[in-house]
């Protein structure tokens, strides 16, 4: 089982303001780990540090016991870190199947140069990847399968989230970082997504770090939860015990 992510002492300082202040976090191989906290507590910043989008002031990050914090964004992706974005980031002029298939970039054995010559090996590889993409999209039932050739702009917000998740899983990552995947989904769709995420990650065999506001969603999926507030880790543990922590309640609701 792969996908063990260890972050030690992650700090990000903007000017004099500490967005993250010595946060440590551990995602077990093959597990679901949640990351919650009020707006502005540093959740997305932590995801950005792990994926290499944000340069940290200090951090030690290991994926499966291999240091990755010197790697750039695309090198970390190739090392097996996949992510989705809080503000959707899809390739808007491409169609659904191309968006998802591009996620498999790190797995391609045939070079991009070879693909230009449309050799039979390159075409075979692309065809195989499209089949895998369709398999992944099939988990979402009939929501995306009839829309494979449609451009992203024609999709609903929830469907765009699904495409982004499929694209991230297409790279067969060791770990998948999800930034509010259920945002813009109604309660029924959210419940459905929890089930689908469990199926998809089982198909791929990766661990998950999940940033989310919806506590039910976290509780349904995660065995371990970290709570961030003002850039520091407030508590961590199983969802049930974290929910009862008085400090967490104060940070979230401002009550004691």
């Amino acid at each position, binding site marked *: 089982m792969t996908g063990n992510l260890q972050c030690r002492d992650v700090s990000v300082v903007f000017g004099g303001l500490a967005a993250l202040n010595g946060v440590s976090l551990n995602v077990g191989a093959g597990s679901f780990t949640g990351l919650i906290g009020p707006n502005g507590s540093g959740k997305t910043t932590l995801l950005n540090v792990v*994926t290499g*989008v944000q340069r940290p002031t200090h951090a030690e990050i290991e994926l499966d016991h291999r240091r990755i914090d010197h790697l*750039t*964004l*695309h090198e970390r*992706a*190739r090392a097996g870190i*996949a*992510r989705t*974005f809080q503000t959707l*980031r*899809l*390739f*808007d*002029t*491409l*169609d659904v*199947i*191309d968006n998802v*298939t*591009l*996620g498999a*970039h*790190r797995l*391609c054995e*045939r070079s*991009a*140069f070879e*693909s*230009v*010559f*449309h050799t039979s090996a*390159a075409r075979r590889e*692309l065809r195989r990847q*499209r089949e895998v993409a369709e398999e992944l999209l099939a988990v979402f039932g009939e929501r995306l399968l009839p829309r*494979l*050739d449609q451009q992203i702009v024609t999709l609903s917000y929830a469907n765009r989230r699904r495409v982004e998740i499929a*694209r991230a899983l297409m*790279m067969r990552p060791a770990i998948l970082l999800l930034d509010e995947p259920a945002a813009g989904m109604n309660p029924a769709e959210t419940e459905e997504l929890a089930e689908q995420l469990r199926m998809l990650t089982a198909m791929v065999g990766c661990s998950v770090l999940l940033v989310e506001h919806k506590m039910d969603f976290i509780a349904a999926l995660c065995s371990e939860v970290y709570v961030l507030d003002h850039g520091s880790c407030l508590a961590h543990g199983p969802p049930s015990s974290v929910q009862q922590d008085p400090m967490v309640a104060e940070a979230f609701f401002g009550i004691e």
Partner: protein
Amino acid sequence: MTQRLRGAGPASARNRGPAGKGLSASIIGPSRARFGWFAAVISACVAGTFGLLVPPILCSQYEVHVLTLVCIYIPLVLGQNLITGNSGQLSMGHAAFYGFGAYTVGILGGVYGWPTPPVLLAAIVATGLLGFLVGLPAIRISGDYLFIVTIGLNLVFIDVVTQWNSMTGGTSGIPGLPIPSFGPIEVRTYSDFYYLALVIALLSLAVVIAIVRSRFGRMVEAVRDDSLAAAACGISLTPVRIAVFVVGAGLAGLSGAVLAYFIGFVGPTDFGVEQSLLIFEMAILGGLGSAAGSVVGAVLLVGVPEILRFLQPYRLGMVGLVMVVLMVYRPQGILGKVKVTNLIRK
């Protein structure tokens, strides 16, 4: 068209599975339909080929001359469109690459007397290399800044060829270029040049379509649409952008080479920033990110001014007006899918 072609791919592939094992009757229906479609494409190609071969026989010498110019502009605009439309890089110095290709012919073909095929190859390779050298630092500069840097490059190019008298002949250029020949075939008459330019334009079109429709083509468009998301998919941005820049420059070099042979002279006046602007306009007008759009852009902006020649004093104004009207009603160009305004903020 591409939409429909791509649409047909996966759907027919999916139908084939169960139908192939099932009733043969269900196969006949779709395959007959596919044959009809195939026949339509073939007959369109045959008709198109005859249409393209005929002009030198039926048209006046002047009209053949204009058509040759259109064909010369096609690889040039294809290159610009690959860089700006598919890759989303606002490059505004394409005439420098065009000129570099022309001067390669002037110097290697004219001064040193190399035969035509190696000169054409050298024009492509040398201009591609120039694209690489310029692209390496310039690509890191994104969007609007690249626009200004490439204008600067164009100005520097013009200055170098004007001042470097011993090599380029300065303002008087290099006259009396040899007649291009490929083995026993000499390209002498207007119709010869038309066929040469036509073949090169069609080859360039085929190359660009092969690039755009490949996995690499998708990567290029992904980097344009969202570079952060592309990097998060493991795509390394700089090599992709530079590769496109090199191919675009190489195509411009090829165009320049054909132009030099066609007019038999190379001088600095044809490769200024106004020329870059014209090439840029062709790509935008035809449609960013569309190979067919590049052809349409070249046809319109070379052809329309000639068609409007009877309006002599107002000709250029009318061309400008056509551009304004098109941009108001179709900001993505005639066949394009990307609006130029989407590229500016990135």
